[in-house]
C-alpha cells in the first residue's frame, strides 16, 4: 500500500492549524503543521511533502515570500488560503506558481476537494507539472488561467460561471481530443467543489453561447456522435 500523502499546513492561527490537521488526518493524510514561514522552512527538509497548504496572511514573512522560496526549492503543489477580496494577492500567488487557492472562511470539504484535485493533477500528469500558463489562445479567444478570465477576440472580458470556466479549461487543455460525457464528468468533479450534477450538455450549450458558437452548427466546441465533445481549434500557450 502507498504511504499516506504528507501535507504541510502553514497557518498562524493555532486552532485552525490543529483543527485542519485533525480533519485532514481523518481523511487519510499525514499532516505536519507550522506556525509561520520560519517554522515551515525548518520543517521543509524534514519530510517529503506531497502538498503544502499555505496561509497568505501571516505575521513576519508573508505567504507570498514563502511560496516564492518554496518554488525555488521544489515544485511541490501549493494551495493558498486567501482572504476574500484579496484579488491582487491571489493573482500574484497564482503567478508565483501556486496551484490553487481557497478563500477564507473556507468550507473544509471544498479545501479537501481542491487538495485532491491539485494532487491528482500534479502527480497524475507526469512528475514535471506545468505552472499555470498566463494565456491560452484558441480561435481568436484568450483564456488567462492565472487571472481566471476569458477575453473575446476584441479583447473584452467575457464573464463565465464557475462551471463554464472549469469546462472550458478542461477542453482547452485537451484540444482536438474527443471527451465523452463521462470523462468530462470525471475531470470536472475533481475541480468543482460540490456536486456538478447539472448535465454537461447544459454547460456546453451555455459556453457555446458565450463563445458565440452557433449551437446548431458549432465550430469551436463540436458535438461528437455517440456522446462527447471536442474543442476543434488550435491552442497556443504562453507561459
Amino acid at each position, binding site marked *: 500500500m502507498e504511504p499516506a500523502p504528507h501535507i504541510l499546513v502553514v497557518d498562524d*492561527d493555532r486552532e485552525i492549524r490543529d483543527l485542519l490537521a485533525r480533519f485532514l488526518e481523518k481523511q487519510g493524510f499525514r499532516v505536519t503543521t507550522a506556525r509561520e514561514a520560519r517554522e515551515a522552512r525548518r520543517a521543509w527538509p524534514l519530510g517529503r511533502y506531497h502538498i503544502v497548504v499555505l496561509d497568505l496572511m501571516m505575521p513576519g514573512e508573508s505567504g507570498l515570500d514563502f511560496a516564492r522560496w518554496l518554488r525555488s526549492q521544489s515544485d511541490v503543489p501549493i494551495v493558498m488560503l486567501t482572504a476574500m*477580496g484579496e484579488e491582487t494577492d491571489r493573482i500574484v500567488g497564482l503567478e508565483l506558481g501556486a496551484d490553487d487557492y481557497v478563500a*477564507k472562511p473556507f468550507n473544509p470539504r471544498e479545501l479537501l476537494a481542491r487538495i485532491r484535485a491539485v494532487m491528482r493533477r500534479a502527480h497524475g500528469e507526469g512528475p514535471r507539472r506545468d505552472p499555470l500558463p498566463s494565456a491560452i489562445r484558441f480561435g481568436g479567444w484568450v483564456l488567462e488561467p492565472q487571472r481566471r478570465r476569458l477575453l473575446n477576440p476584441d479583447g473584452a472580458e467575457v464573464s463565465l460561471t464557475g462551471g463554464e470556466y472549469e469546462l472550458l479549461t478542461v477542453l482547452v487543455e485537451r484540444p482536438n481530443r474527443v471527451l465523452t460525457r463521462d470523462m468530462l464528468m470525471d475531470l470536472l468533479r475533481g475541480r468543482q467543489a460540490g456536486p456538478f450534477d447539472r448535465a454537461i450538455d447544459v454547460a456546453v450549450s451555455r459556453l457555446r453561447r458565450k463563445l458565440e458558437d452557433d449551437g446548431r452548427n458549432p465550430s469551436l466546441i463540436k458535438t461528437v456522435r455517440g456522446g462527447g465533445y471536442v474543442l476543434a481549434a488550435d491552442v497556443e500557450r504562453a507561459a
Partner: protein
Amino acid sequence: MKGLIRRILPRTLAARTALFLLLALMAVQAAGLTIHALDRVDLQRAAMEREMSARVFGLWRSMVVALPDRRPSVLAELELPTGLEAGLDDQPWVRSGMLPAPPEVLRMVRPEILLGGPPRWRAREVQAGMGFGTLYVAALLPDGSQWVNLKLHMPPLRPWHSETFLIAFLLMTAAAALLIVWATRRLTRPVRDLARAANALGRDVNAPPMPEDGPLEVSTAAHAFNTMAERIRRFVGDRTQMLAAIGHDLRTPITRLKLRAEFMEDEEQRAKMLSDLEEMEAMVNATLAFARDDAAAEPSVPLDLAALCRTVLDEAADARPYAPPEAFAYEGPERLTVRGRPIALKRALANLVANAANYGNAARVQLVPPQVGQAAQIQLRVEDEGPGIPEESQEAVFQPFRRLEASRNRETGGVGLGLPIARNILRAHGGDVVLRNRPEGGLLAVATLPA
C-alpha cells in the same frame, strides 16, 4: 405674478446680478442725460429769446422810422426768422377771447421794450394773446395810424434732439454691460467652484480639496468646505475601518467553526450549523464588500456586459434549483462591450438579481443598449414578480443595513447591504440604480451605465 417674474428672471446668479446692475445703470444714465438735456433746453430758450427780441425790436424800429406809405414795402423786405410773421393792419390781430399769454412765452418778444424808449418810438398800446400755440402781439405805432402785428409760432423745444444723446447712451450702456458681465462672472465663479467641489465630494470622498485662494470671503468659504470634507473623510474612513476590522476578525472564528462542524456526529445538526455559518459568512462578505472600496482598486477593462448578465443569471438559477427556469431570463443583445470593473459590476448585478429572486421569485434581466438620438446610456432592467416596494421606501432601501420589515424576514436573509453596494458600484462607474413598481405588479430595478 411671482411665477412670471421667476420665468422672466435669468436663472444664474451672475446673469441676475448683471441684469439688475445694468437696469440700475441705465436708469441713472437716463436721469443724468435728462438733466443735461433740460439744461440745453434752457440755453436754447435763452438764445432764442435774445434773438427774437432783437429781431422784433429791429422790426419795430424799421416801422417807426419808415415813412407811413413806405412801411408795407419795408416790412416785405425784412428778413424774419422762421416762425415769426409780421403784418401791418388797422386792426390788432389779437382777438378778444384769446387766452392771456403766459410770461415765459411773452419773454420771447419782450413787448415791454416797445413800451419803453423815447416817446417818439414808444408804442401807444400793446396787446398780447395766445391762440393755438401761437403768440399774437399787436403794437399800435406811435403815430396811432396802424397796428404792427406779430405772429410768433413757437418752435417746439427739442431737448432730445441730439444724435450724440442716443449714441452716448448706447455706447455707455454697452461698455457698462461688458464690464458688469465680466465682473459678475468673476464674482460668482467661486460659487460655481464650490458647487462643483461639493458635487465631486458627493461622488468621491477622496476628491481633491478646493484651492484656498482668492478674496478673503472666498478663501474662508473654501477653507470651511475643505475642513468639512476632511471631517467627512475621517468619519467615513473610521467607519470603513471598523467594519473591515470586524469583518476580517470574524473570518477566523467562522473558519474554526466550519472545521469544528466536521467533527460533529449528528449529521442534521452539522448541516444546520454549516448553513448558519454560510449565512454569517455571506453577511461578513457583504459588510466587507461595502466597507472596502474594492471597486476603486480594480482596474477598468473592456468587458462583455451581455455575458456578465448571463453569468449572473445562470449562477442565480443554479443556486435555486427548484425555481422554474423561466424565472431567470435574459433579453438583450448577444454582445455589448463596455468599460468597467468586472468583479465590481458582477457583484452589483448579482445583488440586484439576488434581490429580485429572493423577494420577487423571479429575476428577468433586460439589457437596453444606447438608443440612437438619446443620451449615451446603457440600461439594465431587472424585474421580478414580488409585491414591490411602497413608493416612499424605494429610496430608503438604498441606505446601508436598511431592510423593509414587512416584506423581508429572517427566511430571506440578507444584511441590507445588497442594494447599497450595487448603487455604490454603479455610481462609481458614473451610473446609478433606482427602483420602481411595475404597473403589472412586481418591482423593477433600473440600473444605468454610461455607454
